[in-house]
């Protein structure tokens, strides 16, 4: 599902060269649940952005869901992203729309037939236990509920790969546990998951394969 081969990323700003990732190579098989751990600034977010083509790698090969990401033309990026679900630390919900409308928005954007939108949106909300909040606006949700809504939005299009960038970063321990259970549940249904976290304890707690990044280098691949 994911294959990186000697990937490097250097940010350039005028004469300045800031290496963010150096010689990263690993593979993630279909259906696997992998944790990407490391302190803040280790390069986790940059790595995820390379995977969904929000940044271009400086060197190396990247293959995601069958797409050769480095060879993708700008106009083909949407095709890659349609096979991905992405969740961030900040839920990024649209404040002027209800939870249901936030989920339905994705389906409408992707041209899902109108009759399929409502059942699919409610199915996703049910999967994250948020059916009762369908008509609530983001401002009326707790942080945990907002992150559940973001998860529902990510899975509503049945992605092959879920990329989660610090999804529990803003949550207390109890809420973080709930979100992790949901992500594990999504993974157990066959979706490949790559979850980035700076919380070392959380990575240990999950008891999954863990890729540890530090200073832009892959330090460990264990589990």
């Amino acid at each position: 599902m994911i294959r990186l081969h000697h990937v490097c990323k250097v940010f350039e700003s005028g004469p300045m060269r800031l290496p963010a990732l150096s010689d990263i190579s690993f593979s993630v098989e279909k259906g696997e649940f992998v944790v990407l751990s490391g302190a803040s600034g280790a390069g986790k977010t940059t790595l995820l952005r390379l995977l969904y083509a929000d940044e271009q790698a400086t060197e190396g090969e990247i293959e995601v869901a069958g797409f050769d990401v480095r060879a993708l033309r700008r106009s083909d990026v949407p095709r890659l992203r349609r096979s991905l679900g992405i969740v961030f630390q900040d839920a990024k919900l649209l404040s002027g729309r209800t939870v249901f409308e936030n989920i339905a928005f994705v389906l409408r954007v992707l041209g899902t037939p109108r009759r399929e939108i409502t059942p699919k949106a409610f199915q996703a909300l049910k999967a994250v236990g948020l059916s009762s909040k369908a008509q609530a606006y983001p401002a009326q949700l707790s942080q945990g509920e907002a992150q559940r809504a973001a998860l529902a939005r990510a899975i509503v299009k049945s992605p092959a790969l879920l990329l989660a960038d610090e999804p529990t970063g803003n949550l207390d321990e109890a809420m973080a546990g709930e979100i992790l259970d949901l992500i594990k549940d999504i993974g157990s249904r066959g979706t490949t998951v790559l979850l980035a976290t700076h919380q070392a304890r959380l990575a240990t707690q999950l008891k999954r394969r863990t890729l540890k990044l530090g200073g832009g280098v892959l330090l460990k691949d264990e589990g």
Partner: protein
Amino acid sequence: MLSFIVSEALVDLRRAGRVGVSAILLITLSLTALGGFWLLSLNLGRAVSQWRDRVRVVVFLREEPTGGALADLTRRVEGLPGVQRVRYVSKSQALQSLRQSLGAQAGVLEQLPRNPLPASIEVTPEEDATTPQATRELTARLSALPEVEDVQGGAEWVEGLARWQRLFEIVGLGVGAVLALAAILTVTTATTLVLHVRRAETEIMRLVGASEAVVRLPQLLQGMVQGLLGAVVALALLETAYAVAAPRLEPLLNLTLGLARAVFLSLPQILLLIAGGAVLGALGGLLARGRATA
């Protein structure tokens, strides 16, 4: 998908608020100015073409020709370049015509000892020979004929009218272009404002894999809707102004230009004006996208 794009465009239009309304007003102003000058030019153009059709050169003869001489003269005049048709008017026909024109006052003609009117040949120039230059050349050729006493007529004043028509066209296009530019910039501002407000939506659309067309079309459509609304309001204003002014101006137009009635824009012209509005709006939307992504 289409309903999504349309509904997003309408939501964006609402978000544009006062700037959006200003953009619509400016498009209205620009198209009203353009349409107003177009109407003036259109009606002047009709007068010009009507008068061009009526351009005649009258050749007054020294003496009334006899049968053979008349046939010979007619043949020679018809053979001159730029002549489409000739009609001989005898002395008695000229008097008859004057009598009809005088109507009740025709009695004064009975006081005349003899018919003072000369025989003449009325020459209709060919369509492309109704310019002042061509009629001047024709007049010179006709004057050179030995039977000819005097030649009158020409197209100078029709060309004066045509110059006014062209002036209206140029002024209309100039004023319309300046206002259109202002309208495009206002639509650009309105759309940029909306793009700023909807950047969260745009980010989500891109992240979930929306195609660029789906991301961009609402902005384009928003601009087009502003343009269409502006065009419709402009047409309503023009139609109202025409309905109010035309009946009052027609007697004057008839007297001065010989136009029995002033016409409004035709259906294709109306559609062109509406399309112009849509293009103005769409340009504004496109420029805003460029500005926002620059």
